[in-house]
């Protein structure tokens, strides 16, 4: 019984943390909240019977990607706190529109989810790393290759964009 409680508790933490991320003033605080949210989600993965995914989430997502984030923010001073005065708009102007739109979207999704599915419970069972590995290099072999090209594209584009900004303008 307690496992379900832990799952819901972790989900709540993730939710609150991501709300703090979105509404945060300071970039670094927001990033740290993001890490907390990712860890909470990793806990959910584990509880859902996907230990490998949980491990990946912690190591790759929280560990590598967000660290890259923090590194970039620190290195290139992307704080954005020295923004021009125009930035401070009234609360309603910035938030009312998006919240209203997203609220309707959320209502629609919940309506769909609530009466759209047969309530088939997740039978307890763990999909271990071994099973994932077999599937990864079995039918999904090509997916891995293409994912690598995806990363290559990200690498080259990132390199090209950032290349010039450090050495000043290059005619």
């Amino acid at each position, binding site marked *: 019984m307690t496992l379900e409680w832990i799952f819901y508790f972790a989900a709540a933490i993730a939710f609150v943390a991501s709300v703090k991320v979105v509404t945060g003033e300071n970039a670094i605080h927001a990033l740290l909240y993001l890490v907390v949210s990712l860890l909470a989600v990793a806990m959910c993965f584990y509880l859902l019977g996907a230990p490998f995914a949980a491990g990946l989430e912690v190591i790759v997502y929280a560990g590598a990607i967000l660290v890259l984030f923090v590194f970039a923010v620190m290195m290139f001073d992307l704080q954005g706190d020295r923004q021009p005065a125009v930035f401070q708009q009234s609360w309603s102007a910035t938030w009312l529109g998006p919240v209203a739109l997203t609220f309707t979207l959320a209502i629609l999704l919940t309506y*769909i989810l609530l009466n*759209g599915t047969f309530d088939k419970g997740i039978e307890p069972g763990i999909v271990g790393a071994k099973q994932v590995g077999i599937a990864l290099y079995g039918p999904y072999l*090509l*997916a891995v290759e*293409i994912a690598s*090209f995806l990363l290559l*594209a990200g690498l*080259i*584009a990132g390199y090209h964009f950032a290349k010039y900004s450090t050495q000043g303008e290059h*005619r």
Partner: protein
Amino acid sequence: MIVEQFIAIAPQLLLSLAIVMQLLLIAFKRSQHSIAFFTVSAILLALFAHYPAMTNVNLAVTPLLYVDVFSLTINVLILSCSLVAVWVSYGYLRSAVECHDEYYVLLLLAVLGANILVLSNHFAAIFLGFELLSLSLVGMIGYLHLREHTLEAGFKYLILSATASSIMLLGMAFVYGATGDMSLAYQVPQQQDLQLLGQAGLVLIMVGFCFKLSLVPFHTWTPDVYQGAPMPVTLMLATVSKAAMFAIFVKFWLVSAIFNQDSMQFLLVCIAIASMLVGNLLALTQQNIKRLLAYSSIAHMGYLIIVLAIQSQQSVAWALKSGVFYILVYIIATLVIMIYLSGRSKAHAITDNDDWRGWQGLIWQRPLQGSCLILALLSLAGIPLTAGFIGKFYLFTVAIENQLWGAISALIIGSGIALYYYLSIIFCILAKPLETTSQTPIDKVGNFTVSHATVMGMLTVIIVALGLFPDILASQLIFQSEQVTIIFNEASQRF
């Protein structure tokens, strides 16, 4: 992976090999000309690799990809468009001082992404193809630092395509949650009792596709990105990404027999009508040719997806044929105009030369180029003597066969509105030439080589030839509907 499967996806393998070789080439010797030459030869090789691939068609290569005649035709189209893109960007970038070789890598990556997208038969492949295409296009859009709009266009495209792809992923998750399998063909058996969750998932996936095809509710990014991007990238955006997206949309729509659900059918027709009207309306008083082509592409994609709103199984073959013919004609016409524009603008200029009022009296100074442009515009407008008319005529037959009266009236009103801005450009070209004012006249700018003119001429000849004798091509595009049905039954026995 047995040998036939390797042969089936030989072109894609060659492309991947080419990308890796490119990286080695860059490491070895950074010269603009060699990298361009290498890219061209790689694409040509991939094109020729299609010939053996044609022999063992209808083959599932790992559950992710499925090779059939339809996809191979579209891939040939995509590769030829990218060939033109590479050759045009070579001319475009050559004038820049420093060496642009990452550009060609990104270009090949985009082409690879498009090919995978066309061949995909599984959500994972669709997602990967979609993302590979999008990210490499972001890289190319933001390529020229010096431009003022590059950053803005790149950012917009990145953020919006990321949002769209996450919506699509959410949809895929819902569908996976509802049906338990992510391959396209598998959807058919579960189709009938797909509850609301599955349908919602399908709709969310459609959002991703509509975003890339720039159909109405999701079209807002198109004009800004077309204008911000360098000219060859706009050409890629308008041709390669549209063709790939159309192919996967057709497979997604027909293979998983979504047309049986009339609610999805109704949504599709609404989107089509909206994009026909909004696309044409937006373009009415547009001075910038790139933005105008963006808006007209919204309208043309609106015309195109009428092909999908079919009522019955046996009209699939004719719908496919009309769809492919129409997109081919649309791409040729856009290519002609964009080749001319690329020829006329340079990489290191502040902006591309894209104000069509500068074309005044072009036909009297450069008769050949002027008439090519006029014929291309006429083809876009759907006037006889050009292939555009035959394409539109095929669309009319499909729409009437499936009694889509709303779509037909929107088509008529839309092409009525479209005539206004196409004609105003044509009349501008035919008007008296301006006395040479201070800025250099249009036909002296950029490095418009003879090869540009010859390719434009060839494409225009194709337009007129297809306009007068559509049978020379139309008879080849016979995708018997059984090919599509083969996807149905074969793929469902798993691999």
